[in-house]
Each structure stands twice: as structure tokens, then as C-alpha cells.
């Protein structure tokens, strides 16, 4: 059913005259609604994301400033000596000299003499044996001493650098054979990520550092203390 609607100027004028009081408020409400949907809502969303970005950048800036502050207040020579001590405790690679020094010093201090010792370096193409998740260099060691000598030796060795752990012990009343694992770990790659938050030296476990430093000073070899080093050393593999 088609019903023709005639809208001419006359009709429009009549309609306007009749509803002109409503026109302005409705028009204002409509325009405000359009402004809200088209302009204000997207602006709010972009402001929210900008505020999040600002927060992120501020935290980055705070890390950078903190890093800069830590670095400028850190004594370079102290940092070097600390890194040196810690690298002796946990070397970045197989420290054969350090290991032999530690063994002979511990033997000397505990009053036992060393028999044969043998590094088990193993296949160089393969990953080194791991003890508690760390790469280690194992050494099998004979000690001319019973249980008392052995415990004394182990006690000294636990306070000597590089850090080691006991893998196995076999002892009789006169001789002992122990397998020791000396820890080492390569340095992690240090990129240019300035935003990595640094920790000041004074906050990196100072008591542990003191303990390790005291072990290092105890372990400083003086000439003539190297009694066990005369023992015959055999290597199971070339290194």
C-alpha cells in the first residue's frame, strides 16, 4: 500500500513553527553526543595509552638514573678487586693453576701429604660434568692420611678458592681417595642494555663477600708452602 506523503515548504514551516521550542535543546544534545563519540572517547583512549607509555618511560628513566648514580658512586679499583676475588672463587673457565694451588695449600694446612692426582677433563667436545647445575672440573685425589686427616683436608679445602665440592670419598685407616669437583662458570654476555637495573656493591651480600675475601687472603700462597705440589700429577686427557 503506497501512501504518498507531500512535504512542501509550507508543511516544513508549519512543523517548525509548531516544534521550534524543542529544536534548539534537541540539536544541542545531538551535537554534544556526536562530539562525545567522535572526539572525546578516542581522545580518552589515546590518553590512557599515552599515560601507560609515560609510566613505562618514567620507570626506564628511573632505572637509568639509578644505574648512573650507582656507577658514579662505585670505586673503580674496589670494583676490580671485588671482581678479581669473586672470579677466583668461581672462575669463568677451568683454572688448573688455582685448583692445584688450592689442593696443595689445603694439604699443607691440614698436615696430610698428597699421593697421585688425576684431572678427569673428559671429552673436550662435550659439556663438562655438572654438580648441582654448575659446570665443574673433577679431580681424583689420593691422600696419605686416614679419616682425621681427610676431614681436616676437606675442612681446609672448603675455605679455599676456587670453590669446590666433594663428589665421592673412599677412605681406609691410612689412605683416602676423594673425587673433588671444582666449580667454574663462564661470564654472562653483557649487552648494551642500559635499562638492566644495577645493584650497588654495598647491597650485593657484603657478608658473603667478606667471607670469600677472608678465604682468599688465607689462601694467598707464600713461597715454600707448596709441599703437595711435588706429587706426581697425571692427566687423563690432554688439556
Amino acid at each position: 500500500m503506497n501512501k504518498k506523503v507531500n512535504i512542501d515548504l509550507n508543511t516544513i514551516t508549519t512543523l517548525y513553527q509548531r516544534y521550534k521550542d524543542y529544536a534548539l535543546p534537541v540539536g544541542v544534545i545531538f551535537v554534544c553526543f556526536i562530539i562525545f563519540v567522535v572526539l572525546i572517547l578516542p581522545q580518552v583512549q589515546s590518553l590512557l595509552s599515552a599515560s601507560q607509555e609515560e609510566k613505562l618511560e618514567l620507570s626506564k628513566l628511573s632505572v637509568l638514573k639509578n644505574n648512573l648514580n650507582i656507577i658514579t658512586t662505585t670505586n673503580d679499583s674496589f670494583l676490580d678487586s671485588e671482581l678479581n676475588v669473586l672470579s677466583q672463587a668461581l672462575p669463568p673457565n677451568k683454572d688448573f693453576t688455582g685448583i692445584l694451588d688450592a689442593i696443595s695449600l689445603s694439604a699443607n694446612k691440614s698436615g696430610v701429604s698428597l699421593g697421585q692426582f688425576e684431572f678427569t677433563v673428559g671429552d673436550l667436545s662435550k659439556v663438562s660434568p655438572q654438580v648441582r647445575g654448575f659446570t665443574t672440573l673433577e679431580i681424583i685425589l689420593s691422600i696419605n692420611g686416614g679419616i682425621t686427616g681427610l676431614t681436616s683436608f676437606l675442612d681446609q679445602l672448603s675455605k679455599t678458592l676456587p670453590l669446590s665440592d666433594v663428589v665421592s670419598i673412599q677412605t681406609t685407616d691410612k689412605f683416602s681417595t676423594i673425587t673433588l669437583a671444582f666449580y667454574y662458570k663462564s661470564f654472562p654476555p653483557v649487552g648494551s642494555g642500559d635499562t638492566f637495573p644495577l645493584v650497588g656493591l654495598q647491597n650485593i651480600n657484603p657478608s658473603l663477600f667478606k667471607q670469600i675475601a677472608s678465604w682468599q687472603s688465607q689462601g694467598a700462597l707464600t713461597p715454600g708452602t707448596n709441599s703437595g705440589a711435588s706429587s706426581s700429577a697425571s692427566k687423563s686427557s690432554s688439556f
Partner: protein
Amino acid sequence: MSNSINLITPQKEGLERRQRTVKILRIISISFLLATFLLSLILFIISSRLSISDIKKQENSASDSLGLVHNKFAKLILVKDRMDNIQIIIKQRKNYQNLINSILKVVPQDSSINSLGIEKDKITLIVSSPSLLSINKFLDDIVTFSKNKKVINNVIINSLTVDQGLGRYILSVGGDIPQ
């Protein structure tokens, strides 16, 4: 008196309703206008306060300064890495000296440890004594250790033999070293 007399004509009533509606519409439109204005003003103020480019400039400047001391930066990271790993190692490594000393303390005076072996958290001990009573006392003490879950767990007697030539009882025991 008649109650049905209506002095207000229906035309006047309609006009009043219309005026009321227009009034309400005007109030709503003015509220909308004010709200839109206020929101726009707030957004303008907030957006003018956000200054990411300024922060980035400061970041670049700090980053440049750090670049000059990158060596120190790397050393600090390495020190932290060494310290963290050393802490883990020291916390995890076994103190077998204490374990052996604890066992030595419970060995009776007339008895001796012929051999001691430790491997993969297992311990084996061979103790000899001229007296069966001493062997018994040693075993009691070791079992007490096991009960208290100190020093040794799950003690197992592997063998008890007599060496008639030496006149000594030889006891072989094994157990687990607590984690």
C-alpha cells in the same frame, strides 16, 4: 455545588505540559553542553601535562652518560652474577666434614672405622671392634641418628662377620645422607 466545573481549558493544560517538557529539555541540553566542555577541558589539561618527548630526551642523555662508563657497568653486572652463583654454591654444597666428625664421635673407644665411603648421597661404613657390646652401642647410636633424620637416614646393616684371626667383629652398614 457542582464539582465538575473545570476552569482550566484543555488547551491551557497542553501548553503547560509543553512548557514543562521544553524546560526539562533545556536543562538536559545545558548539562550536556557543560559536561562536554568540562571533559574537553580536562582532556586538554591532561594531554598538555603528558610529556613523553621530554622524558625520552632525559633517557637519551642518561643513556649517553652510561655509554661512557660501560666498562664499569659490565663489571658491576659480572660481580652480581658471580655473587649470586657463589651464594647458590655455598648454600648447596655438602659439609661432609661435619658428617664424618659426627660419626667419629659415636665410634666406641675400642672400635675403629676400617673404611668409609661416600658417593651420591650414600654412605657405607665398615667398623671393627673386639667387643660385640661396642658394636651394638655403635649401631644404637647410628639408628638414633637415623630416627632423628640427622647425619644418616635409612640405615641398613650389610653384614656382621667375625675375623677369628684378629679376634674382631666387623660390621658393615650403609645409609642415605639427608639432603
